[in-house]
């Protein structure tokens, strides 16, 4: 049986561009068909913006990669039309156990808040995720949407010219060139485009090695829980993580430290010995993947460089604790795509793209901060740091207060763009969780989910108050979504959106983030907020 990661799913096909007399021009070219590049392409094509995706490969990702996907990315994937297959296939988990030395110190339940369509987390192999995105690309193609994915297309060099980028591409049939108004570089952590442009990373860097084994075991051997060991007997001084994936695959993640002999560690007999010390001598398992990874926490100084926009791992990297890599990459393209579309359509100034830098650098810094802190807790960098770490773990066994201090990875939560230049008016009596810059909180309304009704365009959400059904604001349509407390049996809508107010009007961005909010409708205020949200407030005229 060929497995999904062994099957070419976007094999090389000769494109008409390869026979063109002069380089064909495309509005957007995405380099990299990893999760982030594919999400960008689906988002663009759904909105009718023509997009070409180039990847040197033709398969889904190889090896142990992302497994843990958080609620916000699942909500984004709903908007992209891939949420259902993800959640149907994924393993939902809520219980985690923390072990220290030889014993379990405590157990927690994430107890996800009620009234959300999507669970707090699912576990799913990255190759399944990429497959669903490629399926979605095919679906859009079949529906006549302007999307094309070119496997076996390796970008060799790029050249930023006046208002566009020239790409030089290598294929099995030889090289060709195309031009892109905008190039979205989703070419991964080793980003050749970043190197071609001579760009580098900034920020704190630290390094660690992880032996990651995805193993197949029989159902029933271990429950669907996240088990995390600090300093266990089978991996002294380090940490170990066990987590379940679909198809009876378990992820075992051994931290190895920095000064190790990678070749020695990777030998199958050594991996098996490690696994047996961990799972017991009579444990029976099959190895799906074994690899050693090195992680760094760092980002580029800027994600926008002229007409080249970096997204995902090419722009920032984090350690795997907290599952923030692919999760944050999806929030990058969620943030970028609607802005790119408005700029391409001439409805917003190019400076709107600088807010992509502003907002997603804020997100990247939050992720880097969180993963750095987790890493410091998991691998104390000094004697005193280890003394406190161990004291926290000791206390956590008997004292509830110490448990929030235990940091085995702060799982990805959505980013709020506090202080963003795109944010408009706030109302302080309304709940902080839906303040300008926040992603909308889901809520069940009249048998539907709020988030299923949001996104892809600017919307004016009214709760128990009146507003026009549609406003045209300089070529940008704002559609009304009228909600009523009468359709809010659980009270979630009132709790999440009204707070101390009787009514509310929310201006929502196409990425489901709140732009501004008021108690009642005022047309001039809405137009102002829209101009702010698309960076038209800084002296721009069409």
């Amino acid at each position, binding site marked *: 049986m060929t497995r999904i990661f062994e099957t070419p799913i976007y094999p090389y096909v000769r494109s008409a561009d390869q026979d063109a007399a002069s380089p064909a021009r495309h509005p957007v070219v995405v380099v990299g068909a990893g999760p982030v590049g594919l999400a960008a392409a689906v988002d663009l094509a759904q909105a009718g913006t023509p997009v070409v995706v180039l990847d040197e490969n033709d398969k889904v990702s190889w090896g142990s990669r992302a497994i843990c996907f958080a609620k916000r990315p699942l909500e984004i994937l709903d908007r992209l039309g891939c949420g259902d297959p993800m959640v149907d296939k994924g393993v939902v988990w809520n219980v985690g156990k923390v072990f220290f030395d030889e014993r379990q110190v405590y157990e927690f339940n994430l107890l996800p808040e009620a009234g959300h369509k999507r669970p707090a987390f699912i576990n799913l192999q990255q190759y399944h995720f990429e497959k669903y995105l490629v399926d979605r690309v095919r679906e859009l193609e079949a529906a006549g949407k302007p999307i094309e994915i070119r496997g076996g297309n390796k970008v060799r060099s790029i050249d930023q010219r006046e208002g566009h980028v020239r790409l030089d591409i290598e294929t099995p049939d030889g090289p060709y060139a195309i031009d892109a108004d905008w190039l979205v570089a989703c070419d991964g952590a080793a980003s050749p485009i970043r190197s071609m442009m001579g760009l580098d990373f900034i920020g704190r860097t630290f390094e660690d090695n992880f032996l990651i084994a995805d193993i197949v075991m029989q159902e029933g051997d271990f429950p669907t829980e996240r088990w995390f060991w600090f300093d266990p007997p089978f991996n002294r001084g380090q940490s170990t993580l066990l987590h379940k994936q679909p198809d009876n695959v378990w992820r075992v993640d051994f931290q190895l430290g920095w000064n190790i002999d990678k070749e020695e560690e990777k030998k199958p007999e050594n991996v098996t010995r490690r696994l047996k010390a961990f799972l017991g001598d009579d444990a029976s398992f099959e190895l799906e993947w074994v690899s050693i990874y090195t992680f760094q926490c760092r980002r580029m100084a800027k994600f926008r460089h002229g007409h080249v926009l970096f997204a995902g791992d090419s722009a920032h990297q984090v350690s795997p604790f907290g599952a923030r890599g692919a999760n944050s990459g999806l929030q990058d393209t969620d943030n970028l795509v609607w802005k790119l579309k408005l700029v391409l359509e001439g409805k917003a100034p190019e400076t709107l793209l600088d807010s992509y830098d502003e907002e997603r650098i804020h997100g990247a810094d939050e992720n880097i901060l969180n993963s750095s802190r987790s890493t410091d807790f998991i691998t104390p960098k000094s004697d005193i740091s280890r003394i406190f770490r161990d004291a926290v773990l000791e*206390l956590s066994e008997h004292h509830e207060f110490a448990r929030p201090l235990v940091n085995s990875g702060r799982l990805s939560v959505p980013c709020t763009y506090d202080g963003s230049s795109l944010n408009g008016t706030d109302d302080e009596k309304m709940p902080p969780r839906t303040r300008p810059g926040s992603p909308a909180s889901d809520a069940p309304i009249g048998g539907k989910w709020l988030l299923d009704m949001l996104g892809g365009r600017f919307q004016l959400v009214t709760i128990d108050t009146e507003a026009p059904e549609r406003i045209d604001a300089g070529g940008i349509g704002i559609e009304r979504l009228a909600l009523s407390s009468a359709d809010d049996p659980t009270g979630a809508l009132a709790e999440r959106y009204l707070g101390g107010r009787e009514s509310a009007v929310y201006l929502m961005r196409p990425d489901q983030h709140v732009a501004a909010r008021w108690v009642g409708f005022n047309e001039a205020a809405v137009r102002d907020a829209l101009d702010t949200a698309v960076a038209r407030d800084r002296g721009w005229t069409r």
Partner: protein
Amino acid sequence: MDEMSELITKANIARPDDFYAELIGLHEGRTKEESDALNARLILLLANHIGDIDVLRQAMKAAAKSGHDGARN
């Protein structure tokens, strides 16, 4: 605006000699390593009891000063 709570630096322990003797007594017969671990647990328990991050910050700042620095404060 909220009034910021002040770290109490005036004498606040009713029977200082008793407290001090108990604190030292707690460490009796322990190795340096055990004492370090105990101190860390004690700090964490006390910090949680205080809870207020402003007060904790003032305490960390005051504790970080020593020698001539401390005398000037």
